[in-house]
């Protein structure tokens, strides 16, 4: 399933992610995996709303071993990905921080909740993120835990 997220659409922020989590549970995914997927999706969704120039999409696929979440936007692109992934680093505009967003934890939280995380971005074009979450997580948390 692919969901569209509009830039600046704070009013609906999180609604796509809540639906994704519910859908996954209905599809038989374990609650803790669905929760992690919900968190990954939520951070992605808020990033699209707060930072993207023209919105983007969140696609969720349930594969044999993984839940795969792919996020794509149409801009503005991230200049320094490493910096953007640093917890606490934020470029959030005032209107976002006034609403409690922009703590600078988004990309970091996504990576922490995924078993595999890939990001690529081009300034002026956009950003693509892919997260793989293992369906069987009897440990209740990401199986990989070394810093990357």
């Amino acid at each position, binding site marked *: 399933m692919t969901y569209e997220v509009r830039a600046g659409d*704070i*009013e*609906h*922020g*999180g*609604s796509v*992610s*809540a639906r994704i*989590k519910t859908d996954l549970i209905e599809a038989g995914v374990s*609650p*803790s995996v669905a*929760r992690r997927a*919900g*968190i990954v999706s*939520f*951070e992605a969704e*808020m990033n699209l709303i707060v930072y993207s120039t023209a919105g983007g999409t969140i696609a969720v696929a349930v594969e044999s071993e993984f839940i795969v979440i792919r996020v794509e936007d149409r801009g503005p692109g991230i200049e320094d990905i490493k910096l953007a*992934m*640093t*917890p*606490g680093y934020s470029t959030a505009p005032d209107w976002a921080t006034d*609403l*409690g*967003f*922009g*703590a*600078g*934890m*988004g990309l*970091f*939280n996504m990576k*922490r*909740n995924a078993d595999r995380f890939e990001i690529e971005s081009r300034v002026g074009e956009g950003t693509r993120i892919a997260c793989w979450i293992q369906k069987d997580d009897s440990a*209740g*948390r990401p199986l990989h*835990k070394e*810093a990357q």
Partner: protein
Amino acid sequence: MKLQDVAKAIDGDILVGQDQLDLMVDRAFAADLLSDVLALTEERTALVTGMTNPQVMRVAEILNIIAVIFVRGKTPPDSLLEYARRLHIPVVTTRKTMFETCGLMYAGGARACRSKAVSDMGVDA
């Protein structure tokens, strides 16, 4: 402490959850920044916040938060309360500040949630 004891301690109104007065609230997390809340790991935690935007309940849903306490006299919009009702997540509001609310809940026996992704795994940035 029970939900009704929390409400009593903080002079709060239970806007959603009159049918869950005996809900045990032992762990709490105080935050205004939702991204910070999203780093919480699985635990039966109540959220204490001053932010009343719709995302708060969506985060509560995603994280299985057991109750939401709005401080600083913030009354959330009806749509948020409706949503909370559907999720069966109790909502309490209080005029008190976050500082006072934490203090009174702490005095009642509530403690901060124990596990959180960032601090447990180390912030290796």
